[in-house]
């Protein structure tokens, strides 16, 4: 009987025994990312272990490295909340001097990347360090107890964006760090999602293999902060792709006119011109994504807020050069 090759290596670098919540989508992202990284290192340097991690403070850090235990089977350094990119720069420089071949993976949450760590990220990208920065985007500060970040989507409840008489929840559009990263004209920038693990693995491998800096923003679910059922993480992440909430794209060397868009699936109709995606007709309304999450529950009493979110998503797609048709749920 033929044995099917697993889609990604069975080697583990993020070991069982870490203390993430049950159903944590970010833990899935890190596990897949390290596996994909290792495959890329094997292909590029002939050594699956030729990498190290510099990680920012946040959920994924505190659940994985509680002295005297560790969930990491790869060299791993945590310095602080805002400086994973700078610490990675230092490790990379040290490796260069020591003649160690390999690549550094920097990891940060949306807070540690989009907010407090944005400057260090920009510095690292602009200095062209041979580092892949992976931003796991669970759309809030989870480690300190679900506060909003600049990556929190419009309308979402968090403990610092509570809906109320004078508030619909988070009242600003989401910051798209991938586009900021792309503005540095680095070799590789991509968005990804645990809702499409094969695409994510492919992108991590690609990022790991380029010479120079790369940035990946991966959408990952947080049942605790999003108020979602534990077992629905991947399904919800997939719905984000299928409803147009989360675009999957790649930008090489900042060339936004050569942006590669991964068709969303879920029955969406993709129109291309000259090989380039120009219009996507999504079939599933964003409500299908929103309704599974407690953090958006209050929006269903405020349809104008959902409409505003729909407009923001269209505007975001427009930046990507795509006209997004976002249906409303059938009445």
């Amino acid at each position, binding site marked *: 009987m033929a044995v099917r090759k697993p889609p990604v290596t069975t080697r583990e670098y993020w070991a069982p025994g870490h203390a993430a919540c049950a159903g944590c989508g970010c833990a899935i992202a890190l596990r897949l990312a390290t596996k994909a990284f290792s495959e890329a290192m094997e292909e590029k340097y002939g*050594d699956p*272990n*030729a*990498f*190290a991690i*510099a990680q920012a403070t946040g959920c994924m*850090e*505190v659940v994985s*490295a*509680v*002295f*005297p235990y*560790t969930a*990491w*089977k*790869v*060299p*791993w*350094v*945590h*310095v*602080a909340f*805002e*400086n994973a*990119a*700078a*610490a*990675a*720069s*230092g*490790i990379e*420089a*040290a*490796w*260069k*001097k*020591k003649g*160690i071949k*390999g690549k550094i993976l920097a990891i940060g949450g949306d807070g540690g990347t989009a907010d407090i760590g944005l*400057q*260090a990220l*920009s*510095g690292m990208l*602009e*200095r062209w360090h041979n580092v892949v920065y992976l931003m796991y985007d669970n759309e809030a500060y989870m480690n300190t107890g679900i506060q909003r970040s600049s990556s929190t989507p419009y309308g979402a409840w968090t403990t610092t964006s509570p809906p109320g008489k004078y508030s619909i929840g988070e009242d600003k559009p989401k910051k798209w760090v991938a586009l900021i990263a792309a503005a540095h004209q680095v070799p590789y920038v991509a968005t990804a999602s645990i809702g499409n693990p094969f695409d994510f693995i492919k992108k991590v491998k690609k990022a790991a293999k380029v010479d120079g800096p790369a940035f990946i923003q991966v959408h990952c679910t947080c049942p605790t902060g999003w108020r979602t059922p534990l077992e629905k993480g991947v399904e919800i992440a997939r719905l984000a792709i299928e409803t147009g909430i989360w675009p999957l794209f790649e930008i090489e060397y900042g060339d936004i006119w050569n942006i590669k868009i991964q068709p969303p699936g879920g029955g969406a109709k993709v129109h291309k011109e000259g090989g380039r995606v120009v219009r996507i007709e999504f079939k599933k309304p964003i409500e299908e994504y929103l309704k599974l999450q407690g953090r958006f529950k209050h929006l269903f009493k405020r349809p104008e807020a959902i409409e505003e979110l729909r407009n923001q998503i269209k505007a975001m797609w427009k930046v990507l050069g795509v006209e997004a048709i976002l249906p409303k749920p059938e009445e």
Partner: protein
Amino acid sequence: MPIRTVMKANEAAAWAAKLAKPKVIAAFPITPSTLVPEKISEFVANGELDAEFIKVESEHSAISALVGAAAAGVRTFTATASQGLALMHEVLFIAAGMRLPIVMAIGNRSLSAPINIWNDWQDSISQRDTGWMQFYAENNQEALDLILLAYKVAEDERVLLPAMVGFDAFILTHTVEPVEIPDQEVVDEFLGEYEPKHAYVDPHRPITQGTLAFPAHYMETRYLVWEAMERAKKVIDEAFAEFEKKFGRKYQKIEEYKTEDADIIFVTMGSLAGTLKEWVDKKREEGYKVGAAKMTVYRPFPVEEIRELAKKTKVLAFIEKNISMGLYGAVFTDASAALINESEKPILLDFIAGLGGRDVTFDQLDEALSIAKKALEEGKVEKPISWIGLRKELL
């Protein structure tokens, strides 16, 4: 043969870095230290120093990159001052807690507001509790020597703590003085290769660094830093002795000048020690029994040496270019703590002087002397702290 030449303290610091051969340097410009990374850039550009120089976007990233590099097991260097050092504050604790022997040069400068680029020690004094060793240079030669010594002590396995070497803004950073550049081979012999056993980022020996520690473990990590700082006292003495043997220049944690029969001893740090010694000569001629002492090491605090000094005199007076708001100057407070259980101790006085680059003149020292004399004659003090050289008309 060592080369005798003239240079600014900033250049001396860059030369020290070059001689120590750090593998990774990360720095961001700030007055008065800017010349240090500039000079190092030249060394790297000319191939005189084989290092990675990361031109970071801030001091926070400079020190963060060095923590990464030092965690990966290489010798590192940076230079900063004032606001730059304050921006590093958070990461200074991390460097010490992770036991990374990073060495940093500080062009000691005041802190805002108001913005002032001139000399005092408030920047580095404000970092005293971070777990970094602190050395202060009197002149440009000391700036060079103390950086080499800082590596020697920091990388000693009994210590493994980061160290900063301060030298006064403009008074030293921008002033040309004779400096002897030691032979590379002798420096190599003195420092050796840095091969840490506790910090490395090696794909084939994975370790986890910079973890979270629960209450069950955190306190011990703090104790171990504290204990290493205690151990550093002896290691510093050994390093000073070896340095003297190799390079012929003598260093002491506290260097005394005409203290033997002194009734009043003034203690200070940095370039002010030079002024003070000259003033002591003058006062001696006038018949005053005064002496001077210079603290070369501020952290670990030279408790034993302060006690020895205190035994020699009736008044021990500190002149310091920093102030802990709500109390006294930090050096005075620390020295007072060192003497607290001594059965006999001199009168202790604190003089705050020269903040923000104001010259500390002989007149000001005379002002301090008259306060000290009064305390000596009356055998008591009303207020241990005095600000000298204040322009009362502006208050």
